[in-house]
């Protein structure tokens, strides 16, 4: 069993088993199951497809029953969302989200990379214990620390300040990032590093010439996943920001109780605000599982 884990997962699924009754029947079953997978995917993505379509409809076409699928397309929903109809402009909120996400991701990288190095390439003693300490902090529910953080922010004048979110999002993502990067740095072959050292390469050279090329895709994926989590966060942003530092998800909460015709606008807003996450998520698709499972699943 344990010897088998090294086998490449190549021969699976498609080919017919040697002793199977009828390969033709197996092929037909396979086609049907493939079809079923397609149907499931389409049903699953239908709400999102409907959201995209609705965002391009006029408000009156968006609010019909039965739904008007073939209604003419317009950009009014988007124009409305970006403040064309006199509503509040989403640009400050988008800029705040971008700032909070990008800067917290940078902070995470600066803190997590050296830590991951000390847990993989040149490990400290009891490095697994340290690794699990990082993970355990992720298990503390955010809401449990909310009040002291709020009081601290209030007393230091940090309320409604994007930099406070940068600090909090850094701490929120740091454990995952350390776990992910540890596993990526551990993939760098030790022999390669030793060979470079024997050739007289100093640490900076080893890091930039040997470690970085191997670990770069993983580091990039880690950064994208941190970006996603920061961009999505609502609870802290909702409690700790107000007018100035409001982020995009907080802006979206303005639609919770809207009345009247606003479906196209909601759809346009939801899509535009989700766009960075969709882009980052699809870019990091292959490493997404690893990040979300805290590095436990490759």
């Amino acid at each position, binding site marked *: 069993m344990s010897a088998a884990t090294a086998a490449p*997962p190549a021969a699976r699924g498609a080919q017919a088993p040697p002793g199977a009754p009828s390969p033709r029947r197996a092929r037909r079953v*396979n086609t049907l199951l493939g079809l079923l997978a397609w149907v499931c995917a389409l049903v699953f*993505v239908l*709400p999102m497809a409907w959201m995209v379509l609705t965002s391009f409809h006029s408000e009156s076409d968006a609010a019909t*029953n039965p739904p008007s699928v073939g209604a003419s397309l317009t950009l009014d929903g988007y124009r409305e969302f970006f403040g064309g109809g006199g509503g509040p402009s989403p640009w400050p909120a988008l800029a705040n989200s971008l700032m909070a996400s990008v800067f917290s991701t940078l902070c995470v990288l600066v803190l997590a990379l050296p830590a991951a190095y*000390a847990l993989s390439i040149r490990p400290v003693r*009891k490095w697994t214990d340290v690794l699990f300490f990082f993970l355990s902090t992720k298990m503390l529910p955010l*809401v449990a620390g909310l009040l002291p953080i709020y009081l601290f922010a209030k007393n230091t004048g940090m309320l409604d300040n994007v930099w406070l979110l940068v600090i909090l999002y850094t701490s929120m993502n*740091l454990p995952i990032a350390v776990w992910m990067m540890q596993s990526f740095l551990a993939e760098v072959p030790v022999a390669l590093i030793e060979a470079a050292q024997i050739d007289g390469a100093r640490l900076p050279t080893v890091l930039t010439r040997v470690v970085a090329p191997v670990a770069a895709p993983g580091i990039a994926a880690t950064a994208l996943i941190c970006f996603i989590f920061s961009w999505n966060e609502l609870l802290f942003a909702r409690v700790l920001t107000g007018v100035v530092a409001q982020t995009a998800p907080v802006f979206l909460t303005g639609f919770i109780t809207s009345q009247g015709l606003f479906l196209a606008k909601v759809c346009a807003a939801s899509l535009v605000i989700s766009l960075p996450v969709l882009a980052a998520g699809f870019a990091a698709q292959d490493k997404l599982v690893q990040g979300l499972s805290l590095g*436990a699943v490759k």
Partner: protein
Amino acid sequence: MTTPTVAPAEPSAAPSSAAPASRPPGKVRAWVTRAPLLPALIFLIVVTQLPFAATLVVSFFDWNALYPEARTFGGLANYQEVLGDAQLRDSVLTTILLTVVVVLVSLVLGLLLALLLDRRFPGRGLVRTLLIAPFLLVPVAAALLWKHVLFNPEYGLLNGLLTWVGGDKPPQPDWIASMPLGAVEIALIWQWTPFMMLILLAGLQSRPADAIEAARIDGAGAWQIFRYLTLPHLRRYLELGALLGSIYIVQNFDAVFTITSGGLGTANLPYTIYQTFYQGHEYGLASAAGVLVVIGSLVIATLVLRVVSSLFREEVRA
């Protein structure tokens, strides 16, 4: 719990013994090795552990922000009140119900989808991408989509579809009003099924191919292979999905806040704490509830750490 250090004999990831032995392994040297770790460690302790310690302290005080002068030490009074308060007890129940239903249903759906995707068929990559998409919506956006665009009783898509297929007098239920918690659950299941699918698909693809091949040659049927080979192999991935899902869903705030604003009996613990503190200004009470949530999540967390550490040790040994 803290025994994942059963010293994996010579882990490929830990070349410590391979370090040149020429330099003395003194205390200075140990600190040089530790130094890169310290900034992250200190930062994390300050930002995550200190606030929680403060919460613990506040939880023993009778403290309403509207009457700051009346702040007194109350001992365990807040805990008594939290445990005795019907609304808070309800929110504990709601949290458990919400978490269990969402995690179980999305785990089963995720398993079915993963099994469907674990075979070659035309457009497999595209199907996978489509299935991941719901997970990549901003949670508030996904909740708004369900609340306004799908569940709306007058012009939501669900009732629109019912009008299409329902004939003369199609049923037009008010989804959120008639099943508020169900509405929140459906929205969350839709978002979390892709997560489960991704984890289980990774599990399926790490199955030892030759063991399955051998079983097939020995004449095992598809069901037997699934039952006796695939499922045991998937067990830990199922556990991992369930536990990580629980960690995230127990903490869920966005969906409850957006879809029902905690009304109609859908207030879960994070929402109730938010409300107690943010709208009720009951700092002591909110903190006590927060401490209880932490104790609850510690139970889940211990299990998560155990599963992750067993997967991790296997990895290091391989």
